[in-house]
């Protein structure tokens, strides 16, 4: 099947993120979100009242409160009324919704933001509540445990081993040394097993953070950004929730989403992969057929900063920012959600050819 061709050119024209930190006790969600919203608007010169559509991603289970996103809405100026939506998911899916809105022609600009404040609770326990409530959730398997089952399956299949996983951790955190927003920049020991075969170094940091992007269509994008990151395609796919039904060493949903996004038509030079665990990068690079010619996670990836609900949007933002500054011409961005890469979103971003 040929990939879908968007009916309208839409680009990421600005990206901002917070410094990702272990705790932000002194800030409410809206206080944490606001500076990032102001920064992304400043980059384009837009005011909140100029934005055609606003979409956000966050989770009540992280906040421990119902409808927690309504509090953060104060930060975008929701009065007089704006066109707004929210996904109880990573902000990458909010970006998808905004992209679709722009493709319909009902808006020319969109503000997408996402935030996760993991510090008030235990994110390993919180994430266990997204599991099937009949067969899985009563056993409280935590996010590291499920990733470790996947990692062992990869080791058994001969796709990786502990030294290879340690090398992924080392490369990610070395790259993160150049990322001023990273929570874990620079080399650190692999540490003890958290859940064997995954060690501390194979796992993402727990922390709080925010990301925001602005999308714009056609000429509006060219007005707002010197080198827009055009979204050439985007798709998201899901697999069965039952882990025992899936082949955990593969990610057919990622591969299908990438195919439908047009990722395989021409090589990409950069891939921002949302792999919170080192072992998941192994699954994704295999599923996407990425080789040594592709720069993987130059930002340090989710191993350097993993604000739950924003980490996927950060991948899209980092890939776009690399195009904005001319470090990439064609980049793949990936976001995931659910246990063991259950849901996957892939976008292909391109910059205009350079003279």
């Amino acid at each position, binding site marked *: 099947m040929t990939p879908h061709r968007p009916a309208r050119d839409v680009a990421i024209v600005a990206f901002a993120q917070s410094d990702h930190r272990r705790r932000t*006790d*002194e*800030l*409410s*969600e*809206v*206080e*944490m979100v*606001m500076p990032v*919203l*102001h920064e992304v608007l400043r980059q384009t010169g837009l005011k*909140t009242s100029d934005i055609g559509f606003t979409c956000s991603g966050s989770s009540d*289970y992280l906040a*421990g409160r119902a409808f927690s996103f309504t*509090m953060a*809405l*104060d*930060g*975008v*100026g*929701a*009065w*007089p009324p704006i066109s707004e939506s929210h996904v109880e998911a990573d902000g990458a899916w909010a970006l998808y919704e905004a992209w679709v809105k722009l493709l319909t022609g009902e808006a020319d600009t969109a503000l997408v933001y996402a935030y996760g404040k993991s510090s*008030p*609770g*235990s994110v*390993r*326990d*919180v994430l266990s*509540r997204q599991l099937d*409530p*009949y*067969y*899985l*959730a*009563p*056993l*409280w*398997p*935590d996010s590291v*445990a*499920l990733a*470790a*089952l*996947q*990692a*062992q*399956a990869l080791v*058994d299949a001969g796709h990786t081993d502990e030294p290879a996983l340690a090398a992924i951790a080392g490369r990610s955190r070395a790259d993160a040394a150049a990322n001023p927003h990273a929570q874990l920049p620079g080399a650190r020991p692999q540490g003890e*097993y958290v*859940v*064997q*075969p*995954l060690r501390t170094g194979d796992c993402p940091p727990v922390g709080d953070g925010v990301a925001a992007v602005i999308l714009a269509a056609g000429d509006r994008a060219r007005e707002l950004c010197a080198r827009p990151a055009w979204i050439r395609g985007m798709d998201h796919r899901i697999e*069965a929730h*039952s*882990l*025992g*039904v899936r082949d*955990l060493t593969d990610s057919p949903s990622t591969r299908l989403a990438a195919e439908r996004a047009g990722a395989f038509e021409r090589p990409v030079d950069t891939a921002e992969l949302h792999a919170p665990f080192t072992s998941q990068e192994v699954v994704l690079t295999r599923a996407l057929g990425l080789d040594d010619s592709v720069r993987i996670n130059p930002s340090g990836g989710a191993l350097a900063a993993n604000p739950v609900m924003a980490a996927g949007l950060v991948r899209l933002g980092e890939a776009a920012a690399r195009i904005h500054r001319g470090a990439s011409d064609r980049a793949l961005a990936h976001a995931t959600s659910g246990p063991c890469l259950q849901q996957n979103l892939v976008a292909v971003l391109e910059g205009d050819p350079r003279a």
Partner: protein
Amino acid sequence: MTPTPASPPEILRAPLVVEFPFTRSLGPVQSAFLTGLRERTVLGVRTEAGDVLVPPVEYDPATAAELRELVEVGATGTVTTWAWNPEPRTGQPLATPFAWVLVRLDGADTALLHALDAPGPEAVRTGLRVRIRWAAERSGAITDIACFEPYESDAPAAEPQLHDGRFTDPVTGIVAPARLDYTYSPGRAQTRYLHALSERRTVGERCPSCAKVYVPPRGACPTCGIATTDQVEVGPRGTVTTYCIVNIKAKNLAIEVPYVYAHIALDGAGLALHGRIAGIPYDQVRMGLRVEPVWSEDGRYPDHYRPTGEPDAEYDTYKEML
């Protein structure tokens, strides 16, 4: 009131517990499976392609076809992948270090997630033969399987047998309790608000752009989308802008019904906050009524508002805050 610049507050923290006992109904397949566990019988479901799914689902994950053909599979099986858990967490099946395992039960084509009781990681491997250890007390839940345990046997694996899925007194629902513990911090603006309340003062924060005073403040002006800065003391008196009469008693609430819940525009505030009105018969509360706070016994927040005895406020003075 003279505005004072907002000072950096001492961070407040409090435990926040979220508990939710979800009551879930079961469809025909899940009902048979969980009832079966209560009776030490493991059921799977056969797909059109002939695969046996354990745990069973009602719709084929590949084709979405409805699945109803139940089969009984073995209580022994093979580990397909595992992970050693050195520090069990609250709610997990075993309190001592254990392995998480995916187990393909004999006769099944898919694997079930559970815990394996083993002395250490060196005793676990993919391909290990295991069997179910049943919980002593079973109610029709996945936890009726206490865990798995290593089990080497030369007995040939049984073929799956058709099962009608019928049991006496079938389980038709489960209650899935959950508890999550948080340490809540309210942020700068709400911290300042709470500190002031403890001094029996109500403070809002002014938007530097539109000059409205928000109370309780959340740190941002919802109109301008920018940080509110100056703290402004408002009230203590205010005006009822609108109200409702509550006739249904909430669980664990000592207040007698009917009572009045109102929006109250404190003097100097740019929007109304919520509060209960007392000290006046419920059917005499009205828009424009002037009220003042009555502080709780420990003096940390207004328990309710009561009439001041002043003449009612003119509609024009509060119509913008309705």
